[in-house]
């Protein structure tokens, strides 16, 4: 086949280098959402919380073999290292190479599975077909039973996307940029509606599959781990308010499992790209992830967090603290009586500790010492709660005072070239915050904080 000809002479090591380098900006790469037992005949299973196999020196979780099938691309997205106008070394894996790497890495327990994306070779349908064939081989010839996540290529034939969906655990279509306008300036070959169409198709596919599964328990699963997407933050001028509204509607209207945010890393010089003298907007990305958690697990609506007149998140306070100090009329909350929903809104109380409070207070009234044992971060929570009618210290329920106290602590998040740490995050008290979720949640609490 002619597409295989490029880079035939290249060593596997070189290809892996190029095609990993080219894939690394993709962030939607957790391995969660599917629980699948081994079948006793071939290699692989899936654990619903996902598993982190390593962490790279940027602190990101390595869970899947994240590679491009090819970094050849006919498009010219301005933010992308692989755009056709860039002069970079190009490589393309053969399907066998992808399969062998996946299998050999997997049996050594380096990875949880495969994440496969690709630049556009020839056209979207041709590219999707290559991805499909690779995964087909991996599943049917190599009998790989582990986790597979692929990108659906916008504009590809729907039938191919459908067939691929039956082979993989997760599919994602990249939104790329938060708004259609951003897309027009930076990704002239892409169109919002081409992106939303496969998203809708996958959503429908998942729905139909649920019905099939009700009728026939052994019907093949379609994208069992659900659908995800990602958008680049800070390459285009959208506000945080716009971004979380987009995320909210993706969760509500497209039933996505996850929306990922990727702080823009400037890899190309282009007059349409912002300068970003401070490096990638990591704090902003961080705040968006926090807000995303509030949307998904804490019962917040986007409109409660920000509005037209306050379109950006507070730099000093996390979004939940920010909400709390602006709604002091709702506090203090009595720990021994408050509803679960209200407990979740207290800074320093996370999903797990709220549940633990509900369980523990059935056995007797809780004191501040008990809350500490339960894992509530008291130094954040103390301004907002009472135990049996008493506050921990006499404090003022006054915005300025609380803000000052919440922000003067030494252990606030430090952002610097090597200082950015999620460790001291207050919002998600028992470790429920790290980009790739669930299993990683638990990992964080292992290092004993939050």
């Amino acid at each position, binding site marked *: 086949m002619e597409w295989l000809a490029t880079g035939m002479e290249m060593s596997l090591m070189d290809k892996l280098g190029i095609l990993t380098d080219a894939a690394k900006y993709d962030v939607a790469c957790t391995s969660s959402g599917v629980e699948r037992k081994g079948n006793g*005949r*071939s290699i692989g299973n899936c654990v619903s919380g996902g598993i982190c196999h390593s962490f*790279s020196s940027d602190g990101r979780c390595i869970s899947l073999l994240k590679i491009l099938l090819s970094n050849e691309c006919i498009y010219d997205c301005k933010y992308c290292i692989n755009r056709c106008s860039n002069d970079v070394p190009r490589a393309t894996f053969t399907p066998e190479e992808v399969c062998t790497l996946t299998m050999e890495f997997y049996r*050594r327990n380096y990875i949880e599975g495969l994440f496969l994306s690709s630049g556009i070779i020839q056209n979207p349908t041709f590219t999707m077909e290559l991805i499909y064939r690779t995964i087909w081989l991996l599943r049917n010839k190599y009998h790989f039973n582990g986790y597979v996540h692929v990108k659906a290529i916008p504009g590809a034939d729907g039938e191919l996307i459908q067939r691929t969906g039956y082979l993989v655990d997760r599919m994602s279509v990249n939104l790329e940029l938060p708004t259609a306008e951003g897309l027009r300036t930076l990704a002239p070959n892409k169109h919002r509606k081409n992106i939303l169409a496969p998203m809708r198709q996958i959503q429908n596919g998942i729905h139909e599959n649920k019905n099939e599964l009700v009728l026939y328990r052994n019907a093949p699963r379609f994208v069992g781990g659900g659908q995800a997407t990602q958008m680049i933050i800070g390459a285009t001028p959208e506000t945080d308010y716009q971004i979380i509204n987009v995320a909210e509607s993706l969760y509500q209207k497209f039933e996505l499992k996850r929306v990922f945010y990727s702080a823009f890393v400037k890899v190309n010089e282009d007059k349409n790209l912002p300068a970003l003298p401070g490096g*990638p907007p990591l704090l902003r990305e961080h705040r968006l992830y926090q807000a995303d958690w509030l949307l998904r697990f804490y019962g917040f609506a986007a409109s409660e967090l920000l509005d037209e007149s306050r379109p950006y998140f507070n730099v000093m306070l996390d979004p939940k603290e920010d909400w709390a100090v602006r709604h002091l009329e709702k506090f203090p909350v009595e720990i021994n009586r408050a509803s679960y929903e209200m407990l979740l809104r207290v800074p320093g109380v996370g999903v797990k500790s709220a549940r633990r409070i509900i369980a523990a207070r059935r056995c007797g009234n809780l004191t501040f010492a008990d809350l500490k044992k*339960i894992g509530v971060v008291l130094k954040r929570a103390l301004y907002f709660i009472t135990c049996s009618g008493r506050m921990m210290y006499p404090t003022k329920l006054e915005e300025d005072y609380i803000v000052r106290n919440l922000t003067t602590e030494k252990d606030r998040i430090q952002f610097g070239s090597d200082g*950015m*740490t999620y460790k001291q995050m207050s919002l998600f008290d028992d470790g429920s915050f790290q980009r790739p979720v669930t*299993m990683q949640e638990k*990992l964080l609490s292992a290092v004993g904080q939050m």
Partner: protein
Amino acid sequence: MRVYQCEDSLEGIFTAIYNTYEDNCDRMDTRISINDELFLFAEYIPVETDVDKALKVINTIKRRFGEEDYKRLCFALVSREPEKAQAVYRTVAKGLSKECRPGHLLDDLADDSVNLVFSLARATNNEYLHLMGFTRFAELQSGILYAKIGPKNDVLAFLMPHFADRFPIENFMIHDEKRNLYGVHPAGKDWYLMRGEDVELAESSLRVSDGEMEYQELFKYFCGKIVIEERRNLELQRSMLPLRFREYMAEFK
């Protein structure tokens, strides 16, 4: 006070719990101990580990409190904390003394024993989750996959089912070098544990296969290439992947 002295194993501690019930002990004045601690005015009762008795206790625990809480008790019992046996005893005795629905044994986190069991179980669970990801196998010349681990808690017996389910068609072996314990899984068969004293491994049998170093190099290369330099953050990496695991991981060699 009565002090039941048992061996430091799940069976030993569950047997001790059985004996306290057989002897109609007052739980407020009874202690289960896994070491030779001495108390004034205490009566010492040695416990002979008895698998049947242990099983009876296990079945009662599962029936009354459910599989999930049983698993949490086991996680607590494989930790290194010397107080674990006493904390589990207190927690179980308290649960049995009153109405306690399955899954709610560890609700009362304000109680010190319950809280200790809860924290120990969580620590073990965290290490178990870490090792599901961080364990590294190398292919030996014989084709066997071999991994070495050095966990703080005795998690090998929990790791084995995970890998047996994942690699049913592989011959593999995990060596806990801290306890000199081997988990062995012959392809297509059930796994089992062996004490190091009973395992004979010639130096040469641990030689890696011809392709092994190539894959280690490939993965190492991959781990370097996946980094976004602009986001470099060694501190975050260290908090997510504590240094003590790295000596066992191919990509850090």
